[in-house]
C-alpha cells in the first residue's frame, strides 16, 4: 500500500469519526453537541452544512414557526429586524425588483408570511383542481388590490380574445400535456372559443384572471428559465446509491441485518449468555473468525463474505490495508475515498460513533472495553458492503463479475427521472404574483431578465432560508423579552447584598435548570434563605465507591479525570460485622436474582421457572402496574426491615503521599481540601457574610424502566448522582484544619457556620441529608428550620413541575402532585418520569440578586458569580470554560433532538430495546440510537442558549483570550451572548461582532407567589416578579403590580 493512500485513509477516517455522535455508553450519559464537527463555522452556516451532511433538518418546519407567530411568540418587528440585518450584510442590499414594482424586502416578507406552498410536481395539478386555486385568489389577500387586478386582466383579456387565432392558448399550461381547449373547459367551464371565453369573463372574471395568471406564469417560467439537467449520477457516492437507483433495494438493510448483531456482540458488556469469542483481538479479527467458522453458509451474504475473506486474510492485512483493498475492489477511484468513507460512516452513525468514542476513552465502558478501533469498524463495514453489493447485483440482475464492474453495467446508465422542477417554480411565481398584486399583462410585459431575477430570488429564498429567518426571529423575541425583563428588574434591586446582615441559611445548588424553581420556593418561604448555584460536583472531582457500589465511579464532568478516590464504609469500620453482614445479604439476594434473570431465559431452568413460578408473576405485575406507589412503599419497607443500611462515613483524610490501588490518591490532604473549598466559595462569591448553616445540595434522578435514566442525572457528575460530592464538600469545609488554611488565604469562615450536605432527587422531589449527627446541638434549631423549609419547598416544586405533565390534573393540590411525582418515578409504564432540562433556554452568570424574585420557569441555568471580587476576569474565565460548554451541549442536544428527532435524536422511546448494556436500538435490530428520545424533549423550545453574564465587553475580551474555545463559541454564535454591566446595569447583546444596548421593555407583571403565575397553565410562561421571593420586600416599591 502506498503511503499516500495510507495517509488519505487515515485522514478520511479521522474526519469521518468527527462527524459521528460522540455519545458514550448510555449508562453514563455524556451530553454532546450533535453538530460538534461544525463548531468551527458560524452557527447559521453550520446548520446548513450539517443538515446536508446528516440529511437532517436545520430548523423547525415553517408551520411550527407560523404557529408561534400566531401565539405571539414571534412578531413582525422581530422578522423585520432579522431581514434588515440580512440586507445589511448582503451585497445587493434591499434592491428593487421587477422594474421597481417591489423591493426584495417586500418579496421576502410576502414569502415569509404566506409561506410558499411547495408541492411535489406530482400534486400541483391535484391542488390546483381540488382547492380551486384556479378559480379564486389565494385567501387573505387585499380585496381592493384584487379588484384592480381583475379589472386590468379582464380588459386585457377581452382585447386578446379577438386578436388571438386560438384564444384557448391564453390559458395554456406550458408544463401540462393536456389540450388547452380541455383546460379552458375544465377551468372556466366554458367553450374554448372567443365567444365562450368572453361570456366566462363576464360571469366569472375572477376565475379568468387567476387562470390566465397561472398560464402566464407557466409561460414565463418555461420561456425564461433554462431547464436544469438532472444528473442523477453525481449522487452515486457509494455503490449502495448506484444499486439503490437500479434495483430500489437498499444494500444497507442487507448489511445491517448481519453487521449490527456482530457489532453488538463485540461491544457487549455482559448481556449475552455467550460472549463473542476473540473479541479481545479487535473487531476485524473477531469478525473474521466468526464469519469463517461454523457450518456451511446458506445465507448468500455469509457465503460471499467467506469467499472474500478466504481470498485475503484481512485480519492479517490490518485495518487500513483492508480498507484500501475493499475500496479498490468496489472500484472507487482514489479521489473519492474520503467521501466514500464519510458516507459509509454516516450510514450507521450510532454504532460507528460508539466505537470511535470507546477508542478515545475506553474507560467509559461500563464493564470492560474490547479493543475498539474506528479503522477496523470501517474495514469490516466495507467488507460487508463489498459482499452485499455482489449478492444484491447477482440476485437482482444476475450480475456476474467483480463489484467494480457494476459501475459500468448497462443498468447503471438508467437515470432517475426527476420531473421538471420548473413547474414548481411557476407555481411559486403564481403565488408571489398574487401576493404582490401583479396581473397577467404586467407579467407578460416584463423582460426575461426581470423574470429571471424574481425566480432566482424566490429560489434563493428557499424554505431553509425562510426557516432560518423565522428561527432567528423566534430567538430574538425570546432574547429581547428576557433581557428587557432583567434590565428593568435590575433597576429596582441592589446588585449587592453586601451591606445586609448574613441570612440564616445559605444553600448551594447545582446550576441545573431544574433547581431554579426549588431555589425560588425556598426564597419565597423566607428572606432568611439565600441560594447559590455552581457546578453540581462542587469542585470535588473524585472517584467514588459507595457502600452499595461494586466499583469506583468518577463523579466529575467528563472532561476531567479524577485524581482522588473516596470510599464509603460503615460507621463501625470497614470490617465491622454489620457492614459484612449487610454486604453478604445483598450478595446472596443479588446472586439469586441474577440467576433467575439468566435462568428464566434458558431452557431447563426457564422451564422450571415458567411452570413453577410463572403464574405467580401476575401478582408483582398487576400491583406494579395498577398501583406503583404501593410497590415503592413496600420496597422501602422491605429494604428497611431486611437490609437496613448501616450508618456510613467517608474515608476522606489522607496524610501520606502515595497513590492507592487504583493509581489514585486515597482521599485528600488538608491543603487539597482547602483548595477545593476556596475555589468553590470564590466561584459563587461567598467569601464573606457566612450564614449559620450553609448547605450543599447535590442532585440526581432515579426512575424505573428508563434506559435514559442517567441523562436525567447531574451532568456535572458525568450523569451520576451528585450527593457524595455535596457530602464530601461539607465534610471538607467543616474541617478545622481546612478553615485555618482558608483563613490564611483571606476567607474567614466563622466558627458558628456549619456546612450540611443534602441530596435532591429531581424525579420524585425527595430530599435526603448526610451526616446530620455531626451537626452540633447549637444548630439543631436551624437544622430543623432547614428541613421544614425544604419539605414545603419540594412540594411546591413538585406542583410547578407537574403542570407540564398532561396526565396530572392541573387542579391537584401540592400534596397530590407530590404523590403523583413519586408514583411516576416508580411506574414501569411511565416513559416520562420527568422532563429533565428540557425547558432550558438561558444561562445566567451573575449575582443571585439579579434574578432573585424573578419567575424564570425552570428555563435558566443559574451560575453564581460575583464580578466585584473577580479581578482580571479570572473567575469568569474558569466558570465559562467549565459550565459554558456543558450548558451549550445540553441546550444543543435538546434542541437538535427536538428539531429532527429521528435523525439527531433517538426517536420514540416506545420500541427501544437495550442492547449490549451500552445503548438502545429500535426493536430487534437498528442503529444505536443516540441523542434524546421524543418523550424527553417534547416540551423543549429549540433555540440557542442565551448566556447572560454580569460583566463588561472588556471581560469577554479577556475571557476569549484565556479560553479560545469559549471565545470561538461566542464569536461563531453557538450561544447568544448578553451582558449586564455590574455597575450601571446596562444590558447589551452580542450580535455579529459587536455589542448593542438593549433598552425599553414594559414593566413586569408582579404576583405574590409563583403559583399565582403558573396555575392552570401547561405552556412555557414569561418572566414575572414573585414578590415574596424578593430579597428585601420593601424594595419592590418600584415594581408595578
Amino acid at each position, binding site marked *: 500500500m502506498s503511503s499516500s493512500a495510507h495517509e488519505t485513509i487515515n485522514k478520511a477516517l479521522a474526519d469521518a469519526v468527527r462527524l459521528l455522535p460522540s455519545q458514550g455508553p448510555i449508562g453514563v450519559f455524556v451530553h454532546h453537541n450533535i453538530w460538534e464537527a461544525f463548531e468551527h463555522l458560524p452557527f447559521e452556516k453550520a446548520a446548513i452544512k450539517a443538515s446536508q451532511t446528516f440529511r437532517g433538518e436545520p430548523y423547525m418546519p415553517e408551520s411550527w414557526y407560523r404557529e408561534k407567530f400566531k401565539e405571539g411568540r414571534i412578531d413582525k418587528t422581530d422578522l423585520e429586524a432579522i431581514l434588515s440585518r440580512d440586507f445589511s450584510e448582503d451585497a445587493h442590499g434591499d434592491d428593487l425588483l421587477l422594474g421597481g414594482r417591489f423591493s426584495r424586502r417586500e418579496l421576502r416578507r410576502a414569502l415569509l408570511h404566506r409561506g410558499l406552498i411547495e408541492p411535489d410536481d406530482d400534486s400541483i395539478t391535484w391542488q390546483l383542481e381540488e382547492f380551486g386555486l384556479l378559480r379564486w385568489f389565494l385567501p387573505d389577500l387585499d380585496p381592493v388590490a384584487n379588484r384592480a387586478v381583475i379589472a386590468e386582466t379582464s380588459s386585457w383579456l377581452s382585447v386578446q380574445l379577438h386578436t388571438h387565432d386560438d384564444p384557448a392558448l391564453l390559458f395554456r399550461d406550458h408544463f401540462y400535456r*393536456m389540450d388547452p381547449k380541455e383546460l379552458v373547459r375544465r377551468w372556466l367551464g366554458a367553450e374554448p372559443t372567443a365567444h365562450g371565453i368572453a361570456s366566462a369573463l363576464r360571469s366569472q372574471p375572477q376565475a379568468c384572471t387567476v387562470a390566465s395568471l397561472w398560464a402566464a406564469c407557466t409561460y414565463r417560467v418555461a420561456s425564461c428559465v433554462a431547464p436544469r439537467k438532472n444528473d442523477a449520477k453525481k449522487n452515486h457516492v457509494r455503490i449502495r446509491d448506484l444499486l439503490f437507483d437500479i434495483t430500489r433495494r437498499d444494500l444497507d438493510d442487507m448489511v445491517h441485518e448481519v453487521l449490527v448483531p456482530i457489532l453488538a456482540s463485540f461491544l457487549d458488556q455482559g448481556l449475552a449468555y455467550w460472549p463473542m469469542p476473540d473479541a479481545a483481538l479487535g473487531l476485524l479479527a473477531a469478525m473474521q473468525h466468526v464469519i469463517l467458522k461454523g457450518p456451511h453458509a446458506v445465507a448468500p451474504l455469509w457465503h460471499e463474505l467467506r469467499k472474500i475473506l478466504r481470498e485475503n486474510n484481512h485480519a492479517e492485512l490490518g485495518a487500513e490495508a483492508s480498507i484500501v483493498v475493499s475500496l479498490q475492489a468496489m472500484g472507487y477511484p482514489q479521489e473519492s475515498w474520503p467521501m466514500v468513507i464519510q458516507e459509509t460512516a454516516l450510514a450507521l452513525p450510532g454504532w460507528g460513533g460508539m466505537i470511535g468514542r470507546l477508542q478515545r476513552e475506553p474507560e467509559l465502558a461500563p464493564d470492560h472495553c474490547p479493543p475498539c478501533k474506528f479503522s477496523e469498524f470501517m474495514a469490516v463495514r466495507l467488507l460487508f458492503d463489498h459482499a452485499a453489493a455482489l449478492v444484491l447485483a447477482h440476485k437482482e440482475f444476475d450480475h456476474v463479475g467483480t463489484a467494480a464492474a457494476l459501475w459500468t453495467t448497462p443498468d447503471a446508465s438508467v437515470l432517475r427521472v426527476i420531473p421538471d422542477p420548473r413547474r414548481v417554480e411557476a407555481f411559486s411565481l403564481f403565488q408571489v404574483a398574487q401576493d404582490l398584486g401583479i396581473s397577467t399583462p404586467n407579467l407578460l410585459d416584463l423582460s426575461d431578465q426581470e423574470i429571471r431575477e424574481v425566480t432566482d430570488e424566490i429560489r434563493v429564498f428557499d424554505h431553509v432560508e425562510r426557516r432560518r429567518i423565522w428561527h432567528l426571529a423566534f430567538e430574538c423575541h425570546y432574547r429581547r423579552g428576557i433581557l428587557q425583563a432583567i434590565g428593568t428588574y435590575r433597576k429596582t434591586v441592589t446588585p449587592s447584598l453586601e451591606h445586609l446582615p448574613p441570612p440564616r441559611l445559605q444553600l448551594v445548588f447545582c446550576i441545573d435548570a431544574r433547581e431554579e424553581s426549588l431555589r425560588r420556593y425556598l426564597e419565597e418561604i423566607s428572606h432568611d434563605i439565600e441560594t447559590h448555584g455552581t457546578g453540581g460536583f462542587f469542585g470535588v472531582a473524585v472517584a467514588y465507591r459507595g457502600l452499595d457500589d461494586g466499583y469506583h465511579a468518577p463523579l466529575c464532568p467528563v472532561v476531567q479525570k479524577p485524581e482522588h478516590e473516596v470510599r464509603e464504609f460503615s460507621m463501625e469500620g470497614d470490617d465491622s460485622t454489620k457492614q459484612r453482614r449487610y454486604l453478604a445479604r445483598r450478595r446472596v439476594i443479588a446472586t439469586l436474582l441474577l440467576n433467575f434473570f439468566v435462568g428464566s431465559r434458558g431452557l431447563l431452568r426457564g422451564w422450571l421457572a415458567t411452570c413453577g413460578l410463572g403464574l405467580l408473576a401476575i401478582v408483582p405485575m398487576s400491583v406494579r402496574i395498577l398501583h406503583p406507589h404501593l410497590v415503592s412503599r413496600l420496597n422501602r419497607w422491605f429494604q428497611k426491615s431486611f437490609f437496613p443500611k448501616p450508618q456510613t462515613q467517608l474515608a476522606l483524610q489522607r496524610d501520606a503521599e502515595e497513590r492507592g490501588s487504583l493509581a489514585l490518591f486515597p482521599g485528600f490532604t488538608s491543603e487539597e481540601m482547602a483548595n477545593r473549598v476556596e475555589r468553590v466559595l470564590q466561584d459563587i462569591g461567598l467569601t464573606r457574610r457566612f450564614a449559620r448553616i450553609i448547605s450543599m445540595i447535590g442532585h440526581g434522578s432515579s426512575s424505573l424502566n428508563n434506559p435514559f435514566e442517567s441523562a436525567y442525572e447531574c451532568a456535572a457528575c458525568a450523569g451520576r448522582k451528585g450527593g457524595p460530592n455535596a457530602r464530601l464538600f461539607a465534610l471538607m469545609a467543616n474541617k478545622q484544619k481546612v478553615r485555618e488554611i482558608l483563613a490564611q488565604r483571606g476567607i474567614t469562615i466563622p466558627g458558628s457556620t456549619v456546612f450540611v450536605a443534602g441530596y435532591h432527587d429531581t424525579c420524585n422531589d425527595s430530599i435526603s441529608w448526610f451526616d446530620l449527627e455531626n451537626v452540633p446541638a447549637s444548630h439543631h434549631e436551624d437544622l430543623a428550620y432547614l428541613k421544614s423549609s425544604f419539605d414545603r419547598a419540594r412540594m411546591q416544586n413538585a406542583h410547578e413541575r407537574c403542570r407540564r405533565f398532561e396526565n396530572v390534573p392541573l387542579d391537584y393540590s401540592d400534596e397530590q402532585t407530590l404523590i403523583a411525582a413519586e408514583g411516576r418515578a416508580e411506574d414501569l409504564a411511565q416513559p416520562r418520569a420527568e422532563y429533565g432540562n428540557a425547558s432550558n433556554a438561558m444561562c445566567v452568570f451573575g449575582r443571585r440578586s439579579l434574578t432573585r424574585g424573578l419567575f424564570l420557569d425552570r428555563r435558566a441555568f443559574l451560575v453564581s458569580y460575583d464580578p466585584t471580587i473577580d479581578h482580571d476576569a479570572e473567575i469568569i474565565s474558569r466558570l465559562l470554560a467549565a459550565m459554558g460548554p456543558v450548558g451549550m451541549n445540553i441546550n444543543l442536544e435538546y434542541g437538535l433532538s427536538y428539531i429532527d428527532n429521528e435523525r439527531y435524536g433517538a426517536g420514540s422511546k416506545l420500541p427501544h430495546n437495550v442492547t449490549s448494556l451500552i445503548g438502545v436500538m429500535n426493536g430487534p435490530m437498528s442503529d444505536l440510537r443516540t441523542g434524546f428520545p421524543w418523550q424527553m424533549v417534547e416540551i423543549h423550545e429549540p433555540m440557542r442558549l442565551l448566556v447572560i453574564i454580569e460583566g463588561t465587553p472588556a471581560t469577554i475580551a479577556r475571557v476569549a483570550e484565556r479560553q479560545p474555545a469559549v471565545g470561538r463559541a461566542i464569536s461563531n454564535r453557538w450561544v447568544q451572548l448578553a451582558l449586564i454591566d455590574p455597575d450601571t446595569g446596562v444590558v447589551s447583546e452580542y450580535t455579529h461582532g459587536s455589542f448593542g444596548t438593549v433598552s425599553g421593555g414594559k414593566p413586569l407583571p408582579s404576583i405574590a407567589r409563583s403559583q399565582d403565575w403558573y396555575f392552570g397553565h401547561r405552556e412555557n410562561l414569561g418572566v414575572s416578579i414573585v414578590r415574596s421571593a424578593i430579597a428585601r420586600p420593601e424594595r419592590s416599591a418600584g415594581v408595578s403590580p
Partner: protein
Amino acid sequence: MSTEQFFTACAITILLLPTLAFLWLGANLLIQRRPSELMISRISGTAQLGSLLAAITISMAMMFNHTDQVVVDLGAWFIAANYEFEIVFLIDRLSMPFVLLTCILTGIVGRFSRSYLHHESGYARFFLLMLMFLVGMLCLAMGGTIDLLFAGWELVGLSSALLIGFFQHRKEPVLNGLRTFAVYRICDVGLLVGAILLHHYAHTAEFDLVFTHAHWPVGLPDIPTAPLHVIGLLFLLAAMGKSGQVPFGNWLPRAMEGPTPSSAIFYGGISIHAGAYLLLRMSPLLERSAITMVSIVVIGLLTAIYGTLVGRVQCDVKNQLAYSAMAQVGLIFVEIGFGFHFFALLHMGGHATLRTLQFLRSATVLREFNRLKAATGGSDLSRGGGQYEFLFPMRLRRWLYTAAMRGCDMDAVVQSTLVGPLMKIAGSLERIEERWAGNIDAKRVEP
C-alpha cells in the same frame, strides 16, 4: 334465568364488550373524530374488565356446578341451503383458563399502555388494534366451531402485523410486519384447509359434535385414519406459524418492532401461544394420529434447542426474550405431543405471565444489571451462566457460536426453498406479461 341462559349471557358478554369498544373506536376514527386518550382507555378498559368479570363468573359457576363443558349455541349466522354457519361457543376446561389469561394479561397491558403511550400520535390506533386482537383472541379461544376459530385467528394475525408496523414512518417495522404476515399467511393455509377437511369428514364444524360430545381432553372423532393424518399435520402447520416454531420461527424476533406493550402481549404473552392452544383444542383428534404426535414432539424439540442456542448469543433484551419464548413454546409443544394436556396448559399460563412481565420491564435491565453487579461485588457478569458450554471443545463452541449468530441460516433456508423461487417465478411471469401487453415502453407520466 336458567343455567343455560346464564351461560349464554356471560359468553356473549365476554365477546360483545370488546367488539363494541372496537367498533366504537373504529367508527370514531373513520369519521375523523378523535376521542380523548382518557375516553379511549376508559372505554377499552371497561370492556376488558367486563369481559374479565364475565369470564370469572362463568368459571366460578362451572366450578360450583361441577360442569366440565358448556356449549352455547346462538344459532346460525347465515344459512345457504344445507350449509349453516353456526355461532357456537365452547366453554370448557381448556377455553376458560385461556380466556381468563387473555383477559387478565390484555387488561394489565392495556392499563400499562395508557400511560406508556400517552401523547403518542398513534394512541387511538394502538388501542384499536389491541381491541381487535382481543376480539380475535376471544373468538379463537371460545369459538365452538372451527370457522369461528379461524375468524379469530385471522384477526389476530392482521392486528399482529399492523402492530409490528406501528411505527410506520420507519421502514424496518413495516418490512418486518410484512414478513410476519407472510409467514402467517402461509401457515394459515394449513388451518383453513384443515378446517374444511375436518368439516368434510366429520360433517360438522362444531367441536362438540366432532368430538361426539365428549369433554375435552377426551373425544372420539369419527374420521378415517388417512385424512386424520393429513388434518393433523395441517393443523400442526398452522400452529407452527403462529407459535414461531422451526423453521418458521424467525419472524418472532423481527416482530419486536412495535411498542413494548404490544411485543409483550403478542410475543411474550398470548398470541404466541395461539398455536399451542389450537393443538390442545384439537388434541383428541391429533392423538389418534401417531405421525402428527411424533411431528409435534420433533418440531417442539427442535424449536426448543434452536431457540436456546440462538438465544444464547443475543445481546439485547428483546431478542433474548423472543428466543427464550420460542424455546419455551417449543417445550409446550413437546408436552402436548406427549399428551400432558393440563400440564401444557399450566406451562402456557405460567410462561405467558412471566414473559409478559419480563417484556414490560425489559428497559429496566440497565439499572438491574448495575445494581446486581454492585451487589455481587463487581463480579464479571459476562460469565453470567456459562455452565454447559465448558463441556464442549473450543472448536465446537466456536462452530456453534457462528451457527447461532447466523440463526442457523433458517431464514436463508426458507428464503431459498420457498419464498425466493416463488418471487422469482412471479417476477419473471410479470415481466413477460408486461412485455406482451406492451406496457414496458408505455409512457408512464400521465397528466
